[in-house]
């Protein structure tokens, strides 16, 4: 090998500047940043949509929009939040932190990594474009079936549904490629001495997430492909006239859909112990137990999907099976909760913003999990299904468990990424406003749900008026509070007190040994992990 080659091996050429840098980058930190920024933007897009919905629901009666648009906003909100806000945020963290945590020079397949990211903006464009096309008289707007694509409604829906199917395909390819990259990185690029049972829990959480994604995203791809052929190429997969069955679609969707809820949460469950241990100044409690719990939940996640369709009609045996298997997931999940609490138990705790968000996440996500247990009861679910109770439940899991956990991560790691400390005071305001407004928004939804208000309706009976008004007020405060988040993030990127390598006193791990911000290329020579 020539010397020129050797030089290239170690230090790549200076990257291009400006937009081209971002379009062509192969650097895990650049790509991680793009994921995080994209996620932040889409978080506000999805949020704006649902504020329109909450405005419509402020009072009974039809105020501002046609039911068609209302349905479109709800479905697109959900797809945007899950696929374009939560998942990319978690992937952004994976890109940034996994190489730093395991002592790798980059992700294993850097160009693939760039491709995974750049599939996301086109997917977003495809999903949202039908809104714009409708303004020019092409088509009838975006997907109007909700995010679940249920047949036969989805077979009859307008062209927005085709756009959504193709967006799902791009998102799916992006997720699968991103997951492959993460698995390969963890398998192959760990520093010497970084054995599997020394992997930071965040890495473990993501590893299982990646396995789940590789297992279930292709099934979703298959399901929406069949939907596409039912719509345009004359097949009868979901049509009884040809021997098909609409319920088949529900099975396929939820075979993906239930693991999906863990997919968006495992990264958070992985990062939570890091934060708890840092701010309680104690080592993580029950490392092994948590790793095993991850495995158990990951495996159970693919065999419980039926609890979403218990009212669609299934045999009593199947009902009982799905009920008990679903409830059994709360056992490993309680192991995680127990370990989290044991980690902070009698610790020397301080309550900086990341810790506040982590603790808030635990409490509120706990409510989400408990109400899930209620829903899993096959007899009770007949009443709760498709009511606002379900909406409240999954927002306690997805917003409190997912988004608030991600925000804990942002405040925890942003100083590492930017080299600046965050504005603690604003961040604390952000936390308290978010926590209070969140409960104001979603707690009333449990009650209207129990009282019988169905979900996905633009108008409702008079007796639900007060609770809905509270909920709408909460939603607008919640939305406004997120502007604070934006301010804290932008301020931290632009300046602030310099952050040391070890940003938080109690934080442990390889990522805290490199400077803040870390150099563009870290671990050119492999660190060796001792005991």
């Amino acid at each position: 090998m020539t010397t020129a080659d050797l030089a290239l091996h170690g230090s790549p050429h200076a990257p291009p500047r400006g937009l081209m840098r971002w379009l062509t980058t192969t650097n895990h930190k650049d790509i991680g940043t793009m994921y995080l920024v994209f996620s932040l933007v889409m978080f506000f897009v999805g949020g704006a949509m649902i504020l329109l919905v909450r405005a419509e629901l402020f009072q009974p009666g039809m105020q501002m929009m046609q039911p068609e648009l209302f349905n479109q906003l709800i479905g697109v909100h959900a797809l945007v939040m899950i696929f374009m806000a939560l998942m990319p945020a978690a992937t952004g963290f994976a890109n940034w932190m996994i190489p730093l945590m395991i002592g790798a020079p980059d992700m294993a397949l850097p160009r693939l990594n760039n491709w995974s990211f750049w599939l996301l903006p086109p997917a977003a464009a495809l999903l949202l474009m039908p809104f714009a096309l409708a303004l020019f008289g092409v088509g009838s707007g975006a997907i109007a079936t909700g995010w679940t694509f249920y047949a036969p409604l989805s077979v009859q829906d307008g062209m927005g549904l085709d756009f959504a199917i193709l967006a799902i395909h791009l998102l799916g390819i992006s997720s699968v490629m991103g997951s492959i990259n993460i698995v390969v990185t963890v398998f192959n690029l760990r520093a010497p001495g970084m054995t599997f049972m020394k992997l930071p829990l965040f890495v473990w959480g993501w590893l299982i997430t990646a396995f789940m994604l590789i297992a279930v995203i292709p099934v979703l791809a298959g399901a929406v492909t069949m939907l596409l052929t039912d719509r345009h190429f004359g097949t009868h997969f979901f049509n009884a006239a040809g021997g098909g069955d609409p319920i088949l679609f529900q099975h396929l969707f939820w075979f993906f859909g239930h693991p999906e809820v863990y997919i968006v949460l495992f990264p958070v469950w992985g990062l939570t112990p890091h934060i708890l241990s840092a701010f309680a100044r104690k080592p993580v409690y029950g490392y092994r137990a948590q790793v095993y719990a991850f495995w158990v939940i990951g495996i159970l996640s693919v065999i419980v999907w039926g609890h979403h369709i218990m009212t669609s009609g299934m045999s009593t045996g199947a009902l009982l099976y799905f009920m008990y298997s679903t409830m059994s997931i709360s056992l490993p999940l309680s192991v995680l909760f127990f370990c989290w609490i044991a980690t902070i138990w009698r610790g020397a705790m301080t309550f900086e913003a990341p810790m506040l968000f982590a603790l808030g996440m635990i409490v509120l996500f706990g409510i989400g999990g408990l109400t899930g247990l209620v829903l899993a009861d096959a007899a009770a679910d007949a009443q709760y299904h498709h009511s606002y109770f379900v909406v409240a439940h999954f927002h306690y899991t997805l917003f409190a468990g997912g988004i608030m956990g991600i925000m804990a991560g942002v405040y925890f790691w942003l100083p590492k990424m930017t080299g600046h400390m965050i504005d603690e005071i604003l961040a604390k305001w952000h936390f308290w406003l978010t926590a209070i407004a969140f409960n104001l928004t979603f707690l009333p939804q449990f009650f209207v749900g129990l009282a019988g208000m169905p979900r996905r309706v633009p108008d409702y009976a008079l007796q639900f008026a007060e609770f809905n008004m509270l909920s709408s007020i909460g939603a607008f405060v919640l939305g406004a509070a997120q502007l604070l988040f934006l301010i804290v993030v932008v301020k931290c990127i632009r300046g602030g007190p310099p952050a040391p390598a070890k940003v938080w006193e109690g934080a442990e791990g390889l990522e805290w040994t490199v400077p803040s911000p870390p150099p563009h290329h870290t671990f050119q020579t492999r660190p060796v992990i001792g005991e």
Partner: protein
Amino acid sequence: MSETEQGYYVPDSSPYPALLAGGMFVLALGFALQINDEPVGRWFMIAAAALIGYVLFGWFGSVIAENQAGRFLRWEDRSFRWGMAWFIASEVMFFAAFFGTLFYLRNISVPELGETQLIWPGYRGTWPTSGPAGQPFTPMAAWGIPALNTLILLSSAVSVTWAHWGLLKQRRAQLIGGLALTIALGCLFLGFQAYEYHHAYTEMGLNLGAGVYGATFFMLTGFHGLHVTIGAIGLAAVLGRAIKGHFTPDNHFGFEGVAWYWHFVDVVWLMLFVFVYWM
């Protein structure tokens, strides 16, 4: 250099991934417009196909060039191997969705429709079926062309392994001959498949719209055929590289990746033969 090599090869910035994403966007957009009777979609699709083709040549070309320049060592090679293995795992799940559909329809939805005498009295929920409201058709028999195709694909698995032995033992003629034979068998398979489709459409009344039998038949065999096509293109690329002398006994991931894919496609076919054609 050996495994203890310090540096991992991190490629320079590359325009190809973002271009590929852009191409796929235009393709998806064109397709969505096309199926909604907006004929401009066709032009989008053609432009996108050209762009994607260009990118694939450029991207694979640069990876191959890097490999020939000795940038990839054992460490990088292992990444490619793991990557390909997990990619195939995801493909397995893609086919699993369609097989799951087939089993569900055969064992649950069609029998249940048969029991319900309310809407179409007299409909017997037996397989194969085009459904209560479907047209009559002739199902595909297993022991004609499909059995022959099974033989062809199984032989191609042997021939690709034979080519691999040639590579390992540095017998160039065996490598090139084995690959060429494999590609030929793959094309023969596709030819028979095309004939079978034509026959089904024109003479047997068997088409995508022929109820759930037609739908599962064409989706499963169609996606399989697509994968055979991709595999054959991959084999052709590998053949070209073999002729150029790119492969050595300890550096030939490109060959193995395609060979694994080919075996995967083979196994899917066996499943197809048993569950779609035979049983």
